């Protein structure tokens, strides 16, 4: 395999992993507060169509990303009202949100199915991009790829170095204790849930505005579910989320490469398409076997409604 193929596989891996990083880190924040939102798939789909439509009408991909963010946040707010104010069941409400988002996006997106957006140019970092093999994949990328790294760094700092992050983790571990020492549990959970939704929307918009860039019904293709699984198997730790996302992206790209080039191997294409999902989950299950790390990082109150005492 020559260096240019390796370089382009790396490049495509990073692009494919980026939406997962953004969505999964958003979910991570929501889950750290104790809210399990299974609606990521639906929020991504809404983000994708909103982003696509606004970019098409305004010609600005950045307005598109903002629209995707807003759509995701709106969906998450709806979810938050149901589970945090009305104390609805989080699992059932999240599933409903997924179904709603996927269906609604297909409905809204019908007129846009034949449209194509212009490709958004990459941003080239001078000098660094000239490094052999890794230069192009790392330093000649879409702006959102760079932003996903900034997001990663910010979230690590927020969770483990900042006071609001400490409060967030405390709320997720024991909402009743957090309430008894005076933190507004419900408000914090609202914010975390909406942040999660906003990131899911950005992830969706990345797919439709930067990645493909077109709108097809069902284009999220299970990435929302993979993002949720990533968070769990990464035992709620940002670095592992990132590793898992790139692993998924990598296997995705390699299997496409194998399918495309033929390589003379006769494997059913359906199996190859399932490979990224399978590989990601197997690897993450293996690294998350240690019960101790799970106990130390999992938000204890995840999925449980909490009603503060009056």
């Amino acid at each position, binding site marked *: 395999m020559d260096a240019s193929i390796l370089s382009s596989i790396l490049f495509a891996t990073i692009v494919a992993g980026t939406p997962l990083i953004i969505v999964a880190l958003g979910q991570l924040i929501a889950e750290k507060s104790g809210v399990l939102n299974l609606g990521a798939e639906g929020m991504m789909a809404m983000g994708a169509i909103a982003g696509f439509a606004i970019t098409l009408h305004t010609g600005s991909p950045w307005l598109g990303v903002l629209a995707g963010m807003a759509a995701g946040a709106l969906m998450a707010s709806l979810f938050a009202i149901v589970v945090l104010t009305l104390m609805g069941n989080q699992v059932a409400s999240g599933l409903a949100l997924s179904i709603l988002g996927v269906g609604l996006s297909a409905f809204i997106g019908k007129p846009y199915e034949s449209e194509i957006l212009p490709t958004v140019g990459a941003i080239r970092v001078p000098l660094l991009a000239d490094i052999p093999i890794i230069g192009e994949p790392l330093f000649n990328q879409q702006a959102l790829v760079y932003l996903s790294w900034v997001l990663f760094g910010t979230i690590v700092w927020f969770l483990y170095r900042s006071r609001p992050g400490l409060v967030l*983790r405390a709320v997720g571990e*024991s909402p009743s204790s957090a309430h008894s020492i005076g933190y507004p549990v419900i408000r914090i959970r609202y914010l975390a849930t909406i942040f999660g939704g906003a990131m899911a929307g950005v992830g969706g918009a990345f797919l439709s505005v930067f990645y493909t860039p077109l709108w097809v019904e069902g284009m999220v293709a299970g990435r929302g579910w993979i993002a949720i699984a990533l968070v769990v198997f990464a035992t709620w730790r940002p670095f592992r989320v990132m590793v898992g996302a790139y692993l998924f992206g990598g296997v995705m790209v390699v299997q496409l490469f194998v399918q495309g080039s033929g390589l003379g191997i006769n494997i059913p294409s359906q199996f190859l398409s399932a490979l990224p999902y399978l590989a990601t989950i197997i690897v993450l299950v293996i690294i998350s076997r240690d019960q101790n790390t799970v106990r130390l*990082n999992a938000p204890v109150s995840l999925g449980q409604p909490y009603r503060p005492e009056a």
Partner: protein
Amino acid sequence: MTTAADGGDELRLELNGITKIYPSVIANEDVSLAVKRGEIHAVLGENGAGKSTLMKMIYGVAKPDAGEMKWEGEVVHVENPAHARSLGIGMVFQHFSLFETLNVVENVALALPGNPDLNKLAEQITEVSNRYGLPVDPQRLVHALSVGERQRVEIIRCLLQNPKLLIMDEPTSVLTPQAVRKLFDTLRQLAAEGCSILYISHKLDEIQELCHVATVLRDGKVTGDCIPAEETPKSMASLMIGKELPVPEHSVPGELGEVRLQLNRLSRVSDDPFGTDLQDIELEVRSGEILGIAGVSGNGQQELLYALSGEEPLNDADAIVICGKSSGRDQPDRRRSNGMGFVPEERLGRGAVPRMSLTENALLTAHQAGMLKHGMIQFDKIAAFARKCIADFNVKCGGEEHAANSLSGGNLQKFIMGREILLAPKLLVVAQPTWGVDVGAAAFIRQELIDLRSGGAAILVISEELEELFEISDRIAVIAEGRLSPAKQLADTNIDEIGVWMSGMWEQPAAGVAAHD
């Protein structure tokens, strides 16, 4: 006996006519009390008397429906705990409000205003812990701390806010006797420095030893104020429960019979990463005796109980021998048919199904006692059994068709205990028989256990209440860090020795114990 510190006439906190009504119960009705500067003020009452609710209102966790609260002479409405803390009110909760996956500094930081620097805070924690004799390592994760250490963290957390009033909710229920003495020293030191303390408890001896003044609550109302030093435990008990405190009669044990329970080098690695591994536990309980196991919670009691009940069977069948049969691998129902009864600590959810009727709950463990015919439930028989249980054990309830969760803790415990005792077990394993049960019911349950053993049953009691174990046991052993001490005859030991053992030090020479006094 100490008196309130100088300047003690200044009123720090005054409650007038505080009332709090929950949908089903009046938690507090027209409660008034006054706390002076530097005073240790006891709030005495049984479980459910409304002590905790009252403290929650002072601390702003709950809001009163009527009445006023004055803080240093001025009327205040405490909106939330942060407001209470800004006034100078700190609270140490009965069920700790700590976060297990965070370390000590982070836990403390969460309760402080602003954004404290964690390194400086760690130094402050060390300083305060040295000053008040509350040793704790600021960098350790809370889940790895013992219960006593957790309480220290809670106290330090309050002290760092320089409180003028410290509320302690049942602080000694989780401590060894030695730790209780240390805590009292700390509290006296604080009071001498001018901090007022509201001390909630139902333990009369502690209140007599520590508190300057006591306010007694019963059914949400104040039944009296007194100066504990001038009262007897009897007179305070009658204020608290409305009658005299019954004391169980402990008859001398008769001839011991066969071995009903034998543990042979029982070891088990806990499935729970924060659990305790059991190591080489050996014991023997004979017919006609009560063996008590003392220990601070979290030292392997839960793991031992799960192994004994059969909820977590062992690999080694011989590790547990019940009535002569190797039972280590047996499921709970096999152990029951061998003659073992079991009363778990959690009444609702493990001892009884909350939403099922008492009749159905009786059937759960009594189904082997002729309640079934060709696999069909004999409803008349099982209802008769439940009625007998209710009558014999003085269970106050609406009838055998009422759901288990409609009973108060004490009454449900009496029912569960009755259900097991009526099945005439050869061996009864009981965890925390009177946990959260009012004083009257507790005395009744203890008497029933003594009567059962006098009738020839073998009983193993695991409890965190030392007084209880000394009241009912014939022999007593201690569990610490998953290891079990040798068992001693009650007459050959005392609370001090057991207290030392509770910190795991039973292999040291007896001289160490003597030197302690």
